[in-house]
C-alpha cells in the first residue's frame, strides 16, 4: 500500500543573520487586495529573504512572494548635483518591489483630509516661491519678463486713455497723521503717542 505523499510546509531559512543593515518600506497601494502587501526592498534581497524576514521580525506568515525590478528613467546628471550639467546622462539605480500574500487581511488607515497639522499650505507656498527663484536663476530666466510688467502695462494704458489722473503722493505719510477738521483747522490725530 502506497503511503500518501504529504506536501512539505515551506521551510524557513536556517542561516542566522545577526546585524542586518537594510530598510524595507511598506507601500500604500489602494488598488491592492487586503490580503496583499507590497514593499520597497533593497536590490540584493530575494523572495526567500523577505519571507523569512517578515516571519521572524514581524510574525507575518507569507504564502507567496512576487518580485519586480523597476528600471528608472535616464536623466541629466545625478540627483544630488548642485548644478545640473547638461548631457551628462545618468540612470538612477533600479527599484525593487515585492508583493506578498498574507493569511490575514490588512488595510491601511484612512488618509486624513485636513493637512493643517503638516503645514501643507505653507510648504506648498514655499515650494512655489523656491521654484520661481530657481527658474529665474536658471537658463533663460533673466530674459523672461517679470510678473509686474503686466500690471505696469495696464496702469500705463489707463493713464494714456485718461481713465486715471497722474498724482504724485509726496505727502502720502503726512496724510495719515494729520487730518483736516471740519472747521478747516489742522488736528493731530495721534494724540497719545509717547515718543
Amino acid at each position, binding site marked *: 500500500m502506497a503511503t500518501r505523499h504529504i506536501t512539505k510546509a515551506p521551510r524557513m531559512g536556517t542561516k542566522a543573520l545577526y546585524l542586518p543593515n537594510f530598510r524595507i*518600506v511598506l507601500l500604500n497601494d489602494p488598488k491592492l487586495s487586503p490580503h496583499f502587501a507590497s514593499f520597497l526592498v533593497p536590490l540584493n534581497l530575494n523572495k526567500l529573504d523577505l519571507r523569512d524576514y517578515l516571519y521572524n521580525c514581524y510574525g507575518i506568515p507569507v504564502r507567496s512572494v512576487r518580485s519586480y525590478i523597476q528600471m528608472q528613467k535616464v536623466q541629466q546628471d545625478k540627483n544630488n548635483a548642485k548644478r545640473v550639467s547638461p548631457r551628462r546622462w545618468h540612470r538612477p539605480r533600479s527599484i525593487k518591489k515585492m508583493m506578498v500574500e498574507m493569511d490575514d487581511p490588512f488595510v491601511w488607515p484612512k*488618509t486624513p483630509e485636513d*493637512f493643517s497639522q503638516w503645514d501643507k499650505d505653507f510648504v506648498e507656498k514655499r515650494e512655489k516661491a523656491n521654484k520661481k527663484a530657481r527658474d529665474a536663476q536658471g537658463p533663460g530666466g533673466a530674459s523672461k519678463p517679470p510678473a509686474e510688467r503686466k500690471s505696469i502695462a495696464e496702469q500705463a494704458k489707463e493713464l494714456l486713455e485718461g481713465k486715471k489722473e497722474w498724482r504724485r503722493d509726496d505727502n502720502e505719510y503726512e496724510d495719515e497723521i494729520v487730518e483736516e477738521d471740519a472747521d478747516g483747522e489742522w488736528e493731530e490725530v495721534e494724540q497719545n503717542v509717547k515718543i
Partner: protein
Amino acid sequence: MATSTSIRPVARRLLKANIAQNAPPTFLLPSLLAPVQQSSPFSSTSTSLYPRDMNRQRGVSTRRRTGLRQPLSVSKTPLPKPVLDPAKRPEVDVDVHHGLWDFFYNKKKPFATPLELTQHGRGWTVEELRHKSFEDLHALWWVCCKERNRIATDKYERNRVKAGSGDLESGARDFNVRRTMRGIKHTLTERYYAYREADVLMYEDEEIDVTGQGPPYIPKEAVLEDEVPEEVEAAPAAESADKTDIPPPAATEKGSVVEKPL
C-alpha cells in the same frame, strides 16, 4: 460503419431538401444513392455541408466567450458582480495584532504629525552600551531595524500624498537610531579587540593554564595589604631617606627659597 458514414450526408441532404420543399422526385432516389464517379472535385472536403465534421464542441470557444451549447444546472444562478468602487465594498476587519502594524506609529493615521515625530529622546551612547550583554545589544539592534523601517514607511507615505512638512523631524529621528546602531557596532568591535588581546596575554601569564587540563586559573600566593610584613614597610622609608641626598631639581629649589624664614 463505412456505409453509414457515407450515407449520412446524403440522407441529410435529402432531409434538408424536404424542408425546403425542393424535393427531387422519388424516382431519382437510386441515382442519388449511386456513387459519384463522374465528378472530380478540386478538394476532398465538401463545402456544401455544414457542420463539416461531427464535432459536438464546434463553435464553443472560451476565447470568444460563446458559452456552452446546452444549459447547465448552475445556469439559472446569477453570477456575482464585482464591486468596482472601493468605497462601496464592506470594511475589512483588520486584526489588532497584525504584524504590519509595526510599520506604523498610530493605528488611526497612516503617518505621524511633525509634532509627534519630534517626541523622542537621544540615542544610546557607547558608554551605556558597554554595560550590556550581547543578547541585549542584539535585541536593541533589531528594535532599531524595525524603527528605521517605520520611519522610512512614514516618510514615503507622507511624501506620496504630499502632506507637507515632516522630513526634517523624521530625519532627526533616524539620525538618533543610526547613532545607536553605530554605538552597538562600536561596542562589539571593542569587545572583539579585547578578546584578541586577552588571547595573546593568556600565553604570557604564568597563572593561566593553557593546556586545558585542570583548573584554568591558578593564582599564586597573593600578598594582601593587611598582611604586609614590617620589613617591607620599612623599605620605602629608607628609600625616601636616600632621596634626600640627591640634589632637588630647579623647581623645588625655587620653592625652598620662598620657604626660607625672613
